[in-house]
């Protein structure tokens, strides 16, 4: 479905220090630097796959999505989406894709979302009967109800994002690029959006590429992740495998019948947190069985669970490692 080979996107950026002197100087001479937003990444995505793009701010995730959706012309490499060259922006290609950006909107600001839906129906040339059915489905799944009749400017962020998603799906795209779709939403709205996106993928077999800083989004939606850092691909594979690779440890969460001295916990593993009757220990995966057995025999354990470390921590560690490696290389 999607094939990317040696994709590069470089920007020429004007640099100017602050101050009046620099401002005047910039009238005569403007130094530029070349920023390598994406520097030779390659990957393939199969039809119907859900893939998460991960990386710190400025890593090149959004730039990659913009190249894939035809907004940006690549500086080098080859990109193909369902047999189309995105930069040509052919109608057949644009009718197959949609890019939803959490920080950009296509809804007409002063008109109700229903007007944008109708506009998209006309632009995407969706037959009226199909449009009616799709809109009914979207209205029901996203709980739009009367929202579509209120001017967009009067909608809350969560309401607006639901309408944005509906507007993006009127033409039933085969490939959906989602750039921070849950940004700024409250926890329950994030969960609702995730459920909807997953259902859309399963029902329509749409290919889905997601960038998000909310690891819950990635964990819930993307069995496969592609990690990009400083424009370079640093991991492509299963999310579970990435977690095991970066943090080959498990968290054991205990609840005790009475207070346990910290020294007793430290004998079992690394103490991540502890309070009066609960504690979290970090132990190597292969030592989980023995640690649990020892804890059950020596401590007043009421309850315990074994978990993966939080994804946020895993990512933070991955990015700090890659920063350290880059600094060492320079």
């Amino acid at each position, binding site marked *: 479905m999607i094939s990317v080979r040696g994709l590069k996107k470089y*920007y020429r950026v004007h640099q100017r220090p602050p101050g009046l002197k620099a401002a005047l100087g910039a009238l005569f001479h403007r130094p530029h630097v070349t920023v390598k937003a994406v520097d030779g990444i390659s990957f393939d995505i199969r039809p119907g796959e859900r893939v998460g793009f991960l990386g710190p701010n400025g890593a090149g995730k*959004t730039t990659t999505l*913009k190249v894939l*959706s*035809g*907004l*940006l*012309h690549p500086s080098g490499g080859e990109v193909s989406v369902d047999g189309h060259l995105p*930069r040509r*922006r052919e*109608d057949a290609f*644009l*009718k197959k*894709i*949609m*890019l939803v*950006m*959490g*920080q*950009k*909107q*296509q809804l*007409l600001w*002063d*008109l109700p979302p229903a*007007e944008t839906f*109708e*506009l*998209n*129906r*006309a*632009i*995407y*040339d969706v037959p009226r009967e199909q449009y009616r059915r799709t809109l009914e489905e979207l209205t029901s799944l996203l709980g739009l109800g009367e929202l579509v009749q209120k*001017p967009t400017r009067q909608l809350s962020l969560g309401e607006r994002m639901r309408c944005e998603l509906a507007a993006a799906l009127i033409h039933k795209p085969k490939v959906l690029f989602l*750039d*921070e779709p849950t940004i700024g939403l409250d926890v329950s709205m994030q969960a609702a959006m995730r459920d909807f996106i997953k259902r859309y993928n399963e029902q329509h077999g749409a290919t889905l590429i997601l960038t998000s800083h909310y690891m819950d989004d990635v964990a819930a939606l993307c069995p496969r992740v592609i990690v990009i850092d400083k424009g370079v691909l640093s991991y492509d594979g299963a999310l579970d495998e990435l977690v095991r690779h970066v943090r080959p440890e498990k968290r054991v969460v205990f609840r005790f019948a009475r207070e346990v001295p910290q020294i007793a916990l430290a004998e079992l593993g690394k103490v991540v947190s502890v309070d009066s009757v609960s504690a979290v220990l970090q132990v190597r995966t292969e030592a989980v069985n023995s640690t649990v057995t020892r804890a059950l025999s020596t401590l007043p354990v009421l309850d315990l669970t074994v978990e993966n470390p939080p994804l946020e921590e895993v990512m933070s560690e991955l990015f700090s490692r890659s920063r350290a490696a880059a600094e060492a290389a320079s």
Partner: protein
Amino acid sequence: MSLKGTVRAMPTLLRVGFSEAVAYRAEMLIWVLSTTMPFVMLALWSSVAHEQPVLAESGRRFGEAEFTAYFLTTFVVRQLASSWAAWEMNYEVRTGALSMRLLRPLHPLVAYGAENIAALPMRIAVCLPVVALSLWAVGTSAVPRGGLRWLAFLAALLGAWLITFLANVCIGCLSLFMQSSVKVMEVWLAAYFVFSGYLIPIELFPGWLRQAVDFLPWRYQIGLPVELLSSMQEPAGALPLLGVQWAYVLGLGLLAQLLWRKGLSRFAAYGG
């Protein structure tokens, strides 16, 4: 989008565009007020012609009635041949909002054009009282007769709108190269005010300037349609001018295509 598809989508584009134009009532009213310069010029020139008519080099005499007909027609033509695509494009390029247009299978330039045309009913509504005032002031005898004149006027009016829109698009496209081209638009507007016949009927220009103005695009944005409707030009005599006008339409159309294609490869899709 194919031509057929665009034509099919056009009624919806225009209807939604009209809804947007109506949504911005206060802004629209302020914009209309900002285009009342012809009324100011009408007052100025009428007072000049009050004592005796102003004599053009061509021998035409401009009395109060001629100035009234000319400047009220100028107001109407300005309303009907307007575009603001350059400002929209500048804003959308700088903020990255152009991205959302580029994702749709409809050429963004068609979308800008449809939005501008969609505001016409509102503008026509603004023009109606002015037309009524014109008829009251100069009498119904001043209404041009003859299908050929009206045909020539409509061709000139369409040409005027296309030149205005395409010039806006060309200047808007420059923002893809130079971050902001609003100042270029201001320079264009300065020349437009002077050379279009908006402030002074072109016939009152000195002969050498009048001849030069015939080769500049601004004259075709206002002067030509106004002169045809106010019977200062005969349809047959205006044919060479119509030819130049439509040559500008063609030239600006080609230039807009070129600038759009070249500029788009530089689009940085800021934001998001």
